């Protein structure tokens, strides 16, 4: 029983990480209609920026994490402004452009840091919290707290501020929102950089616990696909629910079935849910691709 609860806590921590990735991905898609193949790259950039700041410059880990999030946001802003903005209405074009940028970014990372997983980059807090038969690592607790706080902050931004209302208006109907005076040219880069910052922050927090290597982005992108498809495209709430569900399934299936079989179980669940609800849990009519 204790083992099941401990696994559930790990699932919760995983879910919070995945929620950060999924919210960013679904924000970009919901608001701009862009399938961002660079999103997994944001996770990798965040990890490497945090590594460079903490290990390379010797600054404290919290500063490295904040720096990584800001750095990734800045990169996202530049990508949107110079590459994506002009083609924002063309799904295929933006998909390939962001994919091309991902390939360039991965190569730049390999050139600077090498193709091997980095060593000497670990989470500053170690140890395990023991409570009866329950085990939960301190690093996972910190990640869970930071991710949950960030998710709440993002929700507040989206649902409680004028900027969030404007973002949601853009997502609902861009033409009407623009007619009301909301300027896509100002909203899109900020939304893109916000989403990339979420990915970067997650990468900075999680890679010291797991592993940091240049090709992590592809796996993260696949997870983002699964979560947004499960939750319903463009639905922040759906993506969050799906992320926690995926985290739980992954944790339990990894412990009780083994890694690859766990992935297979996850895919089967996705298939079944899509059979029942082709637009995901909280989805709406899909945009044209």
């Amino acid at each position: 029983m204790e083992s099941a609860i401990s696994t559930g806590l790990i699932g919760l921590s995983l879910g919070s990480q995945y929620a950060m990735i999924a919210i960013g991905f679904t924000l970009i898609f919901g608001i701009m209609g862009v399938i961002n193949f660079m999103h997994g790259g944001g996770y990798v950039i965040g990890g490497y920026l945090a590594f460079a700041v903490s290990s390379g410059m010797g600054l404290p880990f919290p500063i490295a994490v904040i720096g990584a999030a800001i750095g990734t946001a800045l990169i996202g802003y530049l990508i949107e402004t110079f590459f994506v903005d002009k083609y924002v209405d063309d799904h295929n074009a933006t998909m390939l452009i962001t994919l091309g940028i991902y390939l360039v970014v991965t190569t730049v990372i390999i050139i600077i840091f090498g193709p091997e997983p980095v060593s000497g980059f670990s989470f500053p807090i170690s140890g395990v919290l023991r409570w009866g038969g329950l085990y939960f690592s301190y690093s996972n607790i910190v990640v869970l707290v930071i991710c949950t706080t960030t998710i709440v902050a993002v929700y507040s931004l989206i649902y409680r501020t004028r900027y969030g209302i404007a973002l949601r208006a853009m997502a609902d109907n861009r033409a009407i929102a623009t007619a009301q005076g909301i300027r896509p040219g100002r909203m899109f880069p900020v939304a893109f950089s916000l989403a990339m910052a979420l990915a970067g922050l997650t990468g900075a927090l999680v890679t010291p616990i797991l592993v940091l290597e240049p090709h992590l982005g592809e796996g993260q992108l696949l997870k983002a696909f699964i979560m947004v498809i499960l939750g319903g495209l463009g639905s922040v709430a759906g993506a969050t629910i799906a992320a926690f569900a995926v985290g739980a399934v992954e944790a339990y299936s990894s412990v009780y079935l083994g890694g690859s079989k766990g992935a297979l179980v996850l895919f089967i669940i996705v298939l079944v849910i899509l059979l029942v609800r082709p637009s995901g849990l909280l989805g709406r009519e899909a945009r044209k691709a």
Partner: protein
Amino acid sequence: MRPRRYRDLIVDIWGILVIGPFLIVPLADWGPLWRSLTHQILIGMTASFGVYIMMRMRLLSFTVPAFMALGGYSAAILAKAGFTNLLVLMAVSFVVPTLAAVPLGFLVLRLKGVYFIFFTFILNEVFQVALFEIPGPTGGSDGIAGVPPATLFNADLGSPRMLVLVTILTALVAAGITFATTHRYRAEFSSIDENEPLAESLGVAVWWYRTIGFLTSAGVSGLAGFALVHQLTAAHPSSFASFSAIDYVAYTIVGGAGTLLGPVVGAILLVTMSNLFSGQGLYAAALFGILLTGAVMVAPRGVIGELRYLVERMQARPRGEEATRATQREAGHESA
């Protein structure tokens, strides 16, 4: 001016004819570098026909590697069992993915837009994991090694030249099937592409034509899988990695998704460039990324789409000038 349908037909026929010159590689016995390049181009081209068929109905499908795996593995299992006739292997590698696409189509074709894209992407991953996890005839993570080469009329097709010839033949067959399908259902595919709800309201059985496209796309992808397995003489899950779907999509979009010539040109261009870049080792992926981004930004309609647009504009200009002069002449007569 000739009707659009006729012009499309000519461009699509060029898409098949362009494959012909590759025959010089086995016939003139060009070296291993050329053979390798020919294999890569033609297998990539054949796979991208699978993407092209679906894009004719505005569906961006990432299922190609999964169907390639089905076709490739089916042929490999059959060849290992002693059935090495080329025609049989090609038929099986087409039919098995097509049959598998029937239930999958029921599942996948209910999805629309971006859900379809994501779902087909995930489907590849399912196939990958399943191939690794499920032992038995597919060999699990070891795959199937030592696949015997195909034979035709008792002739062994295992020499390097013959392997290339089989790849060319497979590409030609795939191009022919793609050409036949997209022209037979041209009007229906175009109506779905332009306005699906309108097409449906006018009585076009959208689900039926989507299914036809999906099944053909699966079969053509299976042929690409067969060509790959035949060239490598092995079937391994890593040969059908889900991210390779992006390459095939890139060939189609960069070349131009409007005509059969598009994926042909896209595959030739991108595979050749990535081979040139591979000499740069570490920088190869970045150079490919720059090429991809640049190509989409400079030519959003794809190479062939942009060329056709330019030609049509050039042809339209003289006619426009002629019409203006005629109007001016008529106006002159009236005032006189």
